[in-house]
């Protein structure tokens, strides 16, 4: 598979100036909102039962970036969360681990200490999360700290103000600079905060902008605004990574984050993946859920499938 460097060079001509980049992004096919939402809703009617449901639940658990991003986060809280990521259901050791835990940069070392020697990655938000309102050197320092503390993945936010003002090249260069800070130590997830970009056309443009600038993942949201991941905006981003790979050969991951709270919703997202980009993305290297409460619902559903009884909140851990 070609590296992202070749993807970047494939678009060298359109990233020479803001106007060239603008022409490219505005030349992408438009999105009809009603049609997009209808397609997402239609895939949402898939009925996933029995063996398919068992497969989907385990897959979903394995794709979770188990997240805590609170002002009140403490080392104790982060350690407990990391322990849960490694061992989500103490009553059933066949339960897969989550993909990662996702924390603020200052908690990376704490998480890393618990997760060393496991398959669970540490992801850190960075670049003045969640608003992204800081000078570039601050954002880069934020990133550098997290990587130095052992973060395997960096979840950066774009400057939505710059994007909405049409300063696409500025956004592009910031992503590229953060990518450079990640080097080959950390994979970069680029958060668009789709709820603030507002239109689907903007989400498609942001997706391409992020991918061209070197994102390893494109991610919907911070979880901190009113509208976060939706089936429609995730479908749109899946279409973007599908088209990007068709054009460049480079595969990019997708991470819906925020608002996905139960098994039924998570499975709908997996159906979107399955029927839009297919099996190549049905792996936690390429698809993640940014979530916290989702995990316990998946675990309860998993117990129900195993035992035939409905489970309850007392039979999953509160961390």
């Amino acid at each position, binding site marked *: 598979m070609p590296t992202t460097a070749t993807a970047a060079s494939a678009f060298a001509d359109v990233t020479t100036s803001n106007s060239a980049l603008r022409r490219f992004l505005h030349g992408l096919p438009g999105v*009809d*909102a*009603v*049609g997009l*939402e209808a397609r997402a809703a239609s895939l949402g009617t898939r009925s996933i039962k029995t063996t398919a449901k068992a497969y989907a639940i385990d897959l979903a658990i394995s794709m979770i970036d188990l997240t805590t991003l609170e002002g009140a986060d403490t080392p104790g809280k982060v350690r407990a969360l990391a322990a849960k990521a490694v061992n989500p259901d103490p009553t059933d050791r066949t339960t897969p681990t989550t993909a990662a835990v996702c924390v603020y940069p200052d908690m990376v070392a704490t998480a890393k200490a618990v997760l060393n020697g496991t398959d669970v990655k540490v992801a850190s938000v960075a670049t003045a999360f969640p608003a992204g309102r800081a000078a570039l050197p601050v954002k880069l320092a934020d990133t550098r700290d997290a990587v130095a503390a052992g973060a395997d993945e960096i979840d950066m936010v774009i400057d939505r103000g710059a994007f909405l003002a049409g300063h696409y090249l500025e956004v592009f260069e910031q992503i590229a600079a953060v990518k450079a800070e990640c080097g080959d130590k950390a994979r970069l997830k680029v958060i668009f905060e*789709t*709820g*603030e*970009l*507002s*239109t*689907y056309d*903007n*989400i498609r443009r942001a997706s391409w902008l992020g991918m061209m600038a070197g994102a390893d993942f494109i991610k919907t949201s911070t979880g901190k605004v*009113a*509208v976060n991941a*939706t089936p*429609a*905006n995730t479908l749109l981003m899946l279409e973007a990574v599908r088209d990007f790979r068709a054009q460049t050969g480079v595969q990019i991951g997708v991470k819906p984050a925020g608002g996905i709270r139960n098994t039924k919703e998570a499975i709908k997202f997996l159906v979107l993946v399955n029927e839009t980009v297919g099996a190549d993305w049905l792996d936690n290297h390429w698809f993640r859920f940014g979530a916290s409460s989702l995990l316990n619902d998946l675990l309860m559903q998993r117990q129900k499938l195993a035992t035939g009884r409905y489970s309850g909140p007392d039979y999953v851990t509160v961390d």
Partner: protein
Amino acid sequence: MSDVTRLGVFKTYKLYVGGKFPRSESGRVYEVTDSKGKWLANAPLSSRKDARDAVVAARKAFGGWSGATAYNRGQILYRIAEMLEGRREQFVREVADAEGLSKSKAAAVVDAAIDRWVWYAGWTDKIGQVVGGANPVAGPFFNLSTPEPTGVVTVLAPQESSFLGLVSVIAPVIATGNTVVVIASEKSPLPALSLGEVLATSDLPGGVVNVLSGRTAEIAPSLAAHQDVNAIDLTGADEALAKELEIAAADNLKRVLRPQPGDFSEAPGTHRLTAFLETKTVWHPTGSLGASGSAY
């Protein structure tokens, strides 16, 4: 010289096809007499080939006429009324001869016919609002129905009411943007042929109205069967001919207006306007302002 009466100049009555005044390609004519049997003129005895040429002319004119603004069509229909008003005396004489009416009764008929053009001139830019409109569908879609002209319409003009009847059947058809091939009253075609001269000087594009004279039963079957005719008004057909033509019209599913009892001096209503309209319904998604579903 005072004891020599001036010899009048006869008019050669000709067809009106594609904005021109041809004789029948067949070279045939037939005698037209007044109600008492007195010779009035020789009228062209149209052939099927004349009918075919008329359809070609009507089809050619359809795009422009149906695409003209409704306001423009209204202006032209009103212009027809103006031109007729100026030639009122001629039509009073022709209608009196054709239908055996007194001069005052014929004048009333001609006046009514002129007023009918005015009535339909006003309809061109209103019928769309009356019969079309937005449909409140249960979903995020804009949905609008608009009437559109059916296309090329063959009209068998009424046999008895040679002028008011004629105007009453062709004006509503062209008001909405259709084009017409009309077969004039067989017995009394002269007012119809003269009307062609009025239409030619009223800014009406050539081919929008095409006037044929001759034997209805000879010309109509080929028009009823013609695959490039979209509709047929059977007003001028008797029961047996109407049935035969309706059967022929089924070959390409022409819209058929069957002969209906009625008096052309009465208020016309809108049914002749709507008889040759199609309804087109266009859907388009509306959607939300933004993907976030929020509103400012």
